[in-house]
């Protein structure tokens, strides 16, 4: 029983990490229709910045905040290059973000070298119902909950949220009603950068962050975001948690060698199930 709890909570923990990456992807796509392949890079930059600051003796908290800030700026930069030029199609912008992700490798190697780095997170472990869980997981879970609540609020309740969604739903119409599509897009990229950075600083203590850590991050995040059709906040979170827990459970009760296979397989099945139910007319509507 307590084993189950361990798997469940660690699963949720990893899931939340994935969700944070996914959230940035969804946010940016929901506003700009761009699948931002540089999302993992934001996390890496945020993490590595925070770690370096910690090494220089800055206290925890401050270092992390600064890391997130830097990631946000990087996000904005990526945005400017990807969608700043008038008439760059989402597909083109996607390739640009891909390119920027690779470009970042060089910069990161220059700044931080090519070796993996890590930081000390919340040390120790707590015991929940006889299950021993790393305290840091609880932090990740908490932050993720807050972030997603905020996003859901933004898009669900506020006019600003609607206006943001409008930009991707129909850019032309957005211009017609006087929404500055590009500015909205840049805002989205900045926030997306911050979200990525947040994911990075939270995951840094759990992982060894190197310039090329983004690949693994982006793939999981992409999986979650796609479960949410690159649009739905809630479904993205659900997808991420599902992914995390599935992996943990497979590793726990089956063999860890197949955890990715099974988890990805399940996500695929899930999506194909969804798709079977929607019909092209409806899919193309609007």
């Amino acid at each position, binding site marked *: 029983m307590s084993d189950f709890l361990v798997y469940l909570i660690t699963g949720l923990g990893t899931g939340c990490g994935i969700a944070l990456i996914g959230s940035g992807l969804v946010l940016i796509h929901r506003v700009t229709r761009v699948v931002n392949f540089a999302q993992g890079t934001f996390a890496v930059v945020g993490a590595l910045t925070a770690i370096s600051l910690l090494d220089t003796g800055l206290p925890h908290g401050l270092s992390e905040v600064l890391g997130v800030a830097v990631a946000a700026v990087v996000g904005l930069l990526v945005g400017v290059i990807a969608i700043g030029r008038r*008439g760059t199609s989402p597909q083109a912008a996607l390739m640009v973000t891909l390119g920027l992700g690779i470009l970042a490798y060089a910069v990161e190697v220059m700044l931080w070298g090519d070796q993996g780095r890590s930081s000390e997170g919340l040390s120790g472990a707590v015991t929940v119902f006889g299950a021993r869980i790393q305290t840091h997981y609880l932090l990740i879970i908490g932050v993720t909950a807050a972030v997603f609540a905020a996003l859901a609020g933004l898009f669900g309740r506020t*006019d600003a949220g*609607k206006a943001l969604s*409008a930009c991707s739903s*129909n850019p032309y119409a957005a211009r*017609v*009603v*006087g*929404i500055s599509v590009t500015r909205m897009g840049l805002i989205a990229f900045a926030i997306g950068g911050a979200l990525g950075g947040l994911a990075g600083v939270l995951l840094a203590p759990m992982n060894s962050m190197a310039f090329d850590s983004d690949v693994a991050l982006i793939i999981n995040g992409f999986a979650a975001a796609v479960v949410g059709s690159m649009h739905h906040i809630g479904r993205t979170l659900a997808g991420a948690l599902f992914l995390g827990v599935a992996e943990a459970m497979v590793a726990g009760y089956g063999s860890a060698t197949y955890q990715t296979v099974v988890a990805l397989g399940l996500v695929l099945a899930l999506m194909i199930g969804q798709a079977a139910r929607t019909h092209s007319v409806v899919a193309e509507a*609007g």
Partner: protein
Amino acid sequence: MVALVGPNGAGKSTLVNTLTGILTPASGSVEVRARIAQVPEGRQMFGDLTVDDNLRLGAWQLRGRGESRRKQRDTSWVYELLPDLVRVRDRKAGGMSGGQQQMVAVGRALMSRPEVLVIDELSLGLAPLIVADLAEHLTELNREQGTAVVLIEQNARLALDLCSRAYVLEAGRIAAEGDSADLAASPDIARAYLGEAQALPAPPDAQDDPGPHDPGPRDRAMADPAPTPGTAGTARGNQDTAVQAARAATREAK
């Protein structure tokens, strides 16, 4: 109220799009000193937002605070004008029927309490009943709030009845303009109707490379601020008329 009439492909949409700044003119300039709202060609819904959200976004530009903001966001009066929408107010606009979308588009434009209202195709896909109501409402707006209306309308009869002035467009140039009553009588109108598709400016890059990423007119209109030589002619043709129509519109706005 100004009417733009002319055969398909005359350049009416292109013209009003330059008016509202969706397209940037290749030459000359458009100055509009007024809050301008547009019912674009082809409805242009926010497909995955609800009908209600679509309407509310119409008021996005109005930067009100507190109470006034609340008023601006209030959509109820639009539903009174277009009762058919009540039934679907919380459904995704993308799923709506052609006419319902047209209603939303009109409602959305009205929401911004415009001083200049540009309507590209009013009656498109609307049931006669609704068209009558809308026509009435527009004249009302024009009379009471002095809202200027630039109207493109397939049903020229209706257009000329509604509007005081009218411009007849053909192949991107103004073929005739004047008091709609006179125009209604004049043969120019008839000519405009008989405008042949062949007489149209041929679109550019004809042997364009196939592939879905080739942007459709809409994307393209956004894509290249400076049209390719092919369109330049059209655009320039439209443009000088654009200035006039804009003046006409703003004159009425004062």
